[in-house]
C-alpha cells in the first residue's frame, strides 16, 4: 500500500543515493538496464516504500533534457506503460477489456508526456489508431522500429 512516505525528506537526494548504491551513475543508466519495466516497478526497486514512480519519471525527464534525448525518453515512457497494461503485447482481438487497456496505456502516456512533446504524441496516437500495430506487438525499448517511425528523434 502506498502511504505517502516517498515525499518525506529530501527525496531527490534519496533517489540518487539509491541509484548510486546500485552501481549506476545516472537514473537513465539504471532504467536502460531494465528495459520495458514499468516506472512503478523501477521505483519499487529503488525504494519499496519511499520512492514514487512519478519521481523516477521526473528524474528520467530531467536527465533526458540534459542529454537532449527527450523524444527517446517519451518513447521509453510508452514502452514501460505498454508493458504494464498489455504484458502480452498488442491485443489480437479488440474486446472491451483490451480496448480499455490500450486506452489506459495511451491516455496515461499523453498525461506523462512533457508539454514540449504533447502535440507529437497526439499525432502518433492518431497514427496508431489509423494503422494499428500487428497483434502481439510488444516494444522492448525506446529504439523499437515501429516506435521510431511513429515518433522519430528530432534532436539528433
Amino acid at each position, binding site marked *: 500500500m502506498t502511504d505517502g512516505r516517498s*515525499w518525506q525528506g529530501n527525496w531527490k537526494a534519496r533517489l540518487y543515493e539509491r541509484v548510486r548504491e546500485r552501481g549506476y551513475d545516472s537514473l537513465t543508466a539504471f532504467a536502460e538496464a531494465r528495459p520495458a519495466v514499468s*516506472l*512503478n516497478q523501477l521505483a519499487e526497486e529503488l525504494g519499496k516504500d519511499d520512492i514514487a*514512480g512519478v519521481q523516477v519519471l521526473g528524474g528520467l525527464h530531467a536527465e533526458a533534457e540534459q542529454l537532449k534525448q527527450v523524444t527517446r525518453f517519451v518513447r521509453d515512457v510508452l514502452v514501460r506503460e505498454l508493458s504494464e497494461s498489455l504484458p502480452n503485447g498488442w491485443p489480437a482481438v479488440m474486446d472491451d477489456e483490451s*480496448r480499455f487497456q490500450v*486506452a489506459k496505456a495511451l491516455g496515461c502516456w*499523453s498525461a506523462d508526456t512533457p508539454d514540449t512533446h504533447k502535440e507529437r504524441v497526439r499525432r502518433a*496516437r492518431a497514427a496508431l489508431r489509423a494503422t494499428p500495430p500487428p497483434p502481439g506487438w510488444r516494444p522492448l525499448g525506446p529504439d523499437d522500429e515501429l516506435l521510431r517511425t511513429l515518433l522519430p528523434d528530432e534532436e539528433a
Partner: protein
Amino acid sequence: MWMSRGCVVWLLWTLALLPRAGVGRYSGLQRHLKLSLRPGPSLLSAWGWTLCADWLCPRWAGLLVAFALLTNGCASLTPPPGRESNLSYTPRGASGPTLADGPGEEPPRALASPPPSQPEPGRQSATLTRQAVFGLVDDVKGTTVSVASALSKLAARPPGLGNRGLSGVNGAFTRYLDYGSNQLPWLHSALGSTTMLTNAASEIADSDMELGILRMTGPRLQATMFGSMLLAAWLDFLQLADIVLRECPAYSAERLFMDMHRVQRLIEPTLSALASQDPEQVEAAATELPELMGQLTREFGSIRDGARMAMESSGRLMAAAQLVEMLTLVSTLRMSLPRLPPAAPATLGVGLVMGSGGVMAGSQIVVSAEWVEMIRRLVQAGVLSLPAVSAAVRIHGGQVMMAQANGDLPEGIRDALGDSPEVRGMQVTGRAGAGMSKAPKHHVLPEEFRAWFEKRGFRGDMDIDKFCVRLEQAHHQAIHGGGNWRLGRTWPNEWNRMIMEALREAEVEAGRMLTRNEVLNIVASRMKRYDIPMKFIQG
C-alpha cells in the same frame, strides 16, 4: 410456597419471551453453533410451543436445562451471586455461560496460532476484507432487525390492567418507543450504503482501490455497530419500563417517566453522534461508549431496585417477590447491557483473556474466535479502528465499569484483534496524530469537473467528495508542482491536469465514455504513481 410461585412466574416468562425477544435476536448464532440440544417434545408441547433446536443458543439451552431442573425441584431459583445479570449482549457466535464452560474448566489456552500480520497478495486480502465487511453488516443487520421487531411488538402490546404498559398511560410513554424506532431509518440507510459501497468495491479491478473503497465503509460500519448496540440498550430500558408499568403500580408512572427521560438524555448525545456518521464524531462516540454503557447499567439496576423497594414498602411482599423474578429475568434476557460490576474486590482481577474459543471473561466466552477473526481483518485493512473495536470488546466483555483510563485491552486480545505497529501507524497518520487532521483535504477527482464525473457514475455514495485524501503540505506541493524538478515549466495544478488528461485521452482512445470502474482503475494506477495513500475521507 414462595419458591413454587416464583417458579411458575419464571417459567411463564421464559417461555413467553422465547419467541418474542429471544429467537430473532440470536438468529445469527444459528450459523456458528453446532448445538443439538433437543428438549423432549412433551416438555414443550405442553405449552403449545414448537421450537427448532437449531435456533437455540446455549443460553436458551441453559434456560431449558434450568427448566428441567426446576420441574424436578432440583434447582434453586435464586441465581448465584454475581450471576443474576451476567448475560450480556454478545455478538455472533459468542454465548453466555455455556454448558461446557463451568467454573473449574481448564483455563483458557492461548490461541494456538495468533494470526500474524503477514502480508497477503492484494487481491486475496481485498476479497477477505470484503467478506468481513459483509459479515459485520449481516451481524449488525441481525441486531437491528430483532430490535425493530421487538420495538413493534412492544408498541403493539395492549395495555394491561388500569391502562398500564408502555402503550397505555394515555400515550405518555409513546415518545420513548418512538425515540427507539426513529433510529431505525438511519441505521437501515447506513447499512444500505455500506452494502452498496462494498458491492461497488467488488467490481474494482485494482485491489488497492478496492481496499480504499472498503475503507470508506468504516465510519458507517462503526456507526451502525455501536448505534445498534446502544439502541438495543434503549430497548432493554423499554422492556423494563413496560414491566414496571404493568406489574408495579407502587412505582409511579411519573417517576418512571422521569427515569426514562434521564436515560434518554444520557443516550441522546452519543446516538446523535453515531447517527451523524461523521468519522471523527463516530470514533469519539465509540471510544466513550463503554463508559456510557457503565452508566446505563447502573441506571438499569437502580430503576429495577427502585421498583422492588416500592412494592415492598407498599406491603405487597408477595407481589414484590414475583416482580423481583420478572425483573431478574428481564435483566437476564436483556440484550445489550453488561452485568453489574463484581462487588467483591477479589473478582476485579478477572480480566479478559484471549482463549481458544474467543475472548473470554473468566470461563465465559464473550466474543467468539470467529468474530475476532472477522474484526482483525477489518482492523488490519484499516476499515475499523482499533480503539473502537477495543471498546466493542470491552462492552461485550462487561468491562464497562472498570476505570481503565486508556481503555486498553490486554496485549493478547489486542494482538488477536489485529494490533500491529502498521495499524497504529495508520491511525496516527489517518487521524489527529502527526498533524494530519490539519493537513489539507484534496479532491482526487478534481472538483471543477464534478459534472464530468457525475456523468460517469460518481453520484450519491460514490460522488467525488467521497474521494478526498489528506496530504501533508510537502506532499501536496510536490504533487501540485511546487516540489517538482526544475523542468523548465510550471505545473500549477499538475495532478488535476494530469489525471484529467489521462482520463480524457483514454476516452478518445476507447472511442466511448469510460465507466466508473474504468475511471477508478486509471485513477488507482495514477495514485500509485504519485504515492498518494488510498485512504479516502469525505470532502
